[in-house]
Every structure is written in structure tokens, then in C-alpha cells.
């Protein structure tokens, strides 16, 4: 799999004495949808934030479509890229956050336009047309002139997804996209994400929502304490988990549901 969309090779990451990622290694093929499961603090979010270099890494390397992210290979060492170079790399890596993080001082429309206009240099008209298309596709065209605070959590998250898609990203990283939502609002966001999966986006979704992992993810990666415990096709993961730790994790979800 040398033509992987995402490749994480032996990545170490620590916060002070705390090792968050330990020699982490994974690959995601183009068009593949991967769920990242694991208890809180297992390193799921950190992994996603390392992939677009929102966090630096201590060792190893991360490649998107074959190109090294955040660093330049100098033979005997990796040299961190400049702010400008890293920013350029992030344009093609979309990220959706647990807390939506819509820009509060901008209208919904402006939120979706700002990436193409201010980062990609598209014209206002071009950015507006595309933003309206995207808002329509997440079912929120009529909210274009509202401010984020006037929207429900589910609506905000759908706008955040539209804002990310406006950059035409090659891969999408979703960091617990439904965790901050009331249970009755998760459905609309899950439906939006399912649509992206069907459209062929390469995605990594850190989540606690089993329905995301079981219904439309191709693969499930289960992490505990910064290490991958199990990496299996979604069906196999839920039907025949190979590891005891996975079985415990899944059993807890089953009991919670009852």
C-alpha cells in the first residue's frame, strides 16, 4: 500500500513525561472510511491533530498522499517546515472538531467562504456560489445569514462540515463530531457524515458513537493508551473481536445501551 492516502509510520508523541502515542503505525487507503475507537485519553484526538500538524510529533513520520507532513526530510534528520509551508499542506486536509469551532464573529455563509477566499484566493463570487451549494447540501442554505450562536449544535456541526468541504480536502479528519451534541441531534450529523462516506471521501473518524463505526465505516482501529490494539474490517471488529481488551470495550457499550 504505497499509494496510501494517509500513512502514519512509527509516530511517538508525548506531553512532558506522558507518552500519548507509542510507535503508532497505520495506513488508510484512498476512499477508505476508518473509525478510531478507544476510551477517552487513548490518543485518538492527538493522533488526528498530529496528522494535520496541529500537534508536532517527537518521532516517526506522517504522509498524506505520499508527501511528508510538517517536516522536510534532510536525510539524517527531519526539519520542521515553516509556518507558510505547513499552512499550505493543511489546505488539503480537512478537519471537523468536537466543539464545531465555527468562527463566532462571522455569519454561516462567511464561515464557509473564508477558507476559499482568504486561503485559496478565490474570488468572492466564486466562494459565495460554492458556499451556497455546500450549505444546501448539508440542508442549511436558509441559515446562510445567521450567526453560529443562533444555530443548534447539530446545525453548527453541519456548517463546520461544509466549511471544511469548501477547501476540497483530499482527506477528512473528524474528531468526535457528535460527542458535544444532544442525543436527538446526533442523527442529522451522522446522516451528513454518511453522505460524505458514500461520496468517496477518505476519512478518519474518532468517535464514541458505535452507529458511525458499525454502519458505514470500512475499518475500525481500536486504540488504548496510545497504542493500536485492534485494526480490523468493521464487520469483523464487531462480530469477532480478536482481543480481550476489545471485547471488554464493546461489552461496556452493550450494557450501556440496555
Amino acid at each position, binding site marked *: 500500500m504505497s499509494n496510501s492516502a494517509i500513512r502514519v509510520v512509527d509516530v511517538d508523541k508525548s506531553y512532558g513525561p506522558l507518552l500519548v502515542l507509542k510507535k503508532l503505525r497505520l495506513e488508510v487507503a484512498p476512499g477508505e472510511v476508518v473509525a478510531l475507537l478507544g476510551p477517552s485519553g487513548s490518543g485518538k484526538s492527538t493522533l488526528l491533530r498530529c496528522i494535520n500538524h496541529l500537534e508536532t510529533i517527537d518521532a516517526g513520520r506522517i504522509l498524506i498522499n505520499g508527501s511528508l507532513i510538517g517536516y522536510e526530510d534532510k536525510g539524517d534528520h527531519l526539519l520542521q517546515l515553516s*509556518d507558510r509551508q505547513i499552512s499550505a499542506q493543511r489546505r488539503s486536509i480537512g478537519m471537523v472538531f468536537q*466543539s464545531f469551532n465555527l468562527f463566532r464573529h462571522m455569519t454561516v455563509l462567511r464561515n464557509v467562504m473564508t477558507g476559499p477566499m482568504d*486561503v485559496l484566493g478565490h474570488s468572492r463570487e466564486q466562494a459565495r456560489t460554492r458556499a451556497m451549494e455546500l450549505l444546501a447540501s448539508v440542508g442549511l442554505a436558509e441559515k446562510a445569514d445567521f450567526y453560529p450562536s443562533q444555530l443548534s449544535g447539530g446545525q453548527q456541526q453541519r456548517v463546520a462540515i461544509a466549511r471544511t468541504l469548501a477547501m476540497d480536502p483530499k482527506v477528512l479528519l473528524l474528531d468526535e463530531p457528535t460527542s458535544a451534541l444532544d442525543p436527538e441531534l446526533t442523527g442529522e450529523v451522522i446522516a451528513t457524515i454518511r453522505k460524505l462516506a458514500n461520496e468517496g471521501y477518505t476519512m478518519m473518524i474518532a468517535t464514541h458513537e458505535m452507529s458511525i463505526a458499525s454502519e458505514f465505516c470500512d475499518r475500525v482501529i481500536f486504540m488504548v493508551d496510545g497504542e493500536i490494539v485492534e485494526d480490523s474490517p468493521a464487520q469483523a471488529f464487531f462480530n469477532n473481536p480478536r482481543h480481550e481488551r476489545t471485547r471488554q470495550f464493546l461489552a461496556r457499550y452493550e450494557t450501556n445501551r440496555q
Partner: protein
Amino acid sequence: MSEATTPEFPTVRVVHRSDWGAWLLSLVCIALVATIILAGIRAEIMDVGLFLGYMVSPQILIGAWNALMLGTLATLAAMVVGLIFALMRVSGNPILASISATYVYFFRGTPMLIQLMFWFNAVPIMFDQIVIAIPFTDMVLFQSPTTRVITPFVAALAGLSLAEGAYMSEIIRAGLQAVDTGQRSAARALGMTNRQVLNRVVVPQAARIILPAAGNQYIMMLKSSSLASAIGYLELLRVATDIYSSNFRVVELLAVAAFWYLVMTAFATALQTGLEKAFPHR
């Protein structure tokens, strides 16, 4: 009132208690204020005709205008200075952060009046000539004796801006830190450079948070401009003082000055309210 539907609980009036203590206290306050005003009128502390005459005299108006300009320019300069030092403070670089902290300590820790006198008196001694030249060449762009450059206005503006900048930098730092870190993450994830994150996301949001406190500082600054009277700048208080030291109508002239400071404060308050309405909290 709706008909009683439950026989054992007939519909009756609901009576709430009134806070008599607060009403009593209000009466006492009104009485106190009235006593003070009556005492002033009985003692004839002020010639109203003279007061009204000086209120619109050209000298006073120029003084008031100078005060407004000095206070406004100093506030604007202080915002720029404050932003720079606030950014240094949050830069994460230990040397820049300590320089910023030291600046704030010194300039917030010494009276503004001392700072003004320092700029006016000490700087011309420390540097007798001000020269702007291109380094390593003989080309001189500007050269002048310092005393000619550091006029009372320049000294007052520099002194007030630097003193106020220390307060502003703390206000701005608090504003910058109040912007949710998720906003920065989202902006960076979109591919914005650090500068774009600052200009398009952090500063606009911080500005809204800073606005009430900055408006407060502007009002303080309009009045602090009166300190410039100590170094001979012809602002409102200096003009009033000059006039009453020759005709001894102290109360009238102080009242005239107070009146114009109140007008300036009303202007600043209206400006702040307008800005807060134009940029509501989102």
C-alpha cells in the same frame, strides 16, 4: 383574573413585599445632595454669567479641543503599543515575555505625572541631538536638537501613550487569551498562516471582548490629558488655571473645565455604546 376552579382554594390577590429600606435610603440621598447644592447657592460660590461666558470662550474651546486630541491620540497609540506588548507576552518566547512583563511593571507602577516630566526633562539631557541616519553610511535623513523635537505635546503624547499602553497591554492580553483555542485550531486547520489566524479570527474576536474595558480607559485618558498641564501643554485644565490665576475666579473656571470634561466623557460613552451595538456579542 380567572375564576376559582378549586373550591378549597379561592382565587385571591398575590401581594409582594416592597423594599422600604431602599426607598428610605433614596430619600436620605436626595436630602444630602440637595443640602450640598443649596449650600453652594447660598454661599454664591459661582457667578453663573461668568461661567457661561467662559464656557464658550475661544481659549477654553482650544484647550478642550487640545485635551480631546491628546486623549484620543494617546489612547490610539496606547492600543498599538498595548497590542505589541500583549503579543510579546503571549508569544511563548521567555525573553519577549519578560521584557513585556517588565514594561508593564514599570509603566503601570510609576505615576503618570512622573513619566510625563521624565520624558519632557530627562530625554533631552540623555540625547541632545536626534539623528535619523542610514547605518554604515554618511547619509543623514533628519537631524535636530532634541529640545526642538520634544515639545510639550510630543512629551505628553509619548508619556501618556506609554503609560496607558501598559494598562492596555494587560487588557488586550486578557482579550486575546479569552478567545477560545478551538477558534485558532479551526483557522489553522483551514490552512491559515499564523498572521491570518491573528488578523481574521483572533483579533476581531478579542476586539469585541476588549471593547468595554478599552472604552473605560479612553474616558480615563481624556481626563488624564490634564496631567500635561504640568509640562506646559495648553490643554483644558492648563488654560483654566492660567485664566483663574490672573482673575481669581477659581470656581467658575474649574466648573467650566469640568463641564467640558463631562461633554468629552459623554462623547466617549456614546462612541463606546455605538461600537458595542455595531459589533454585538455573538
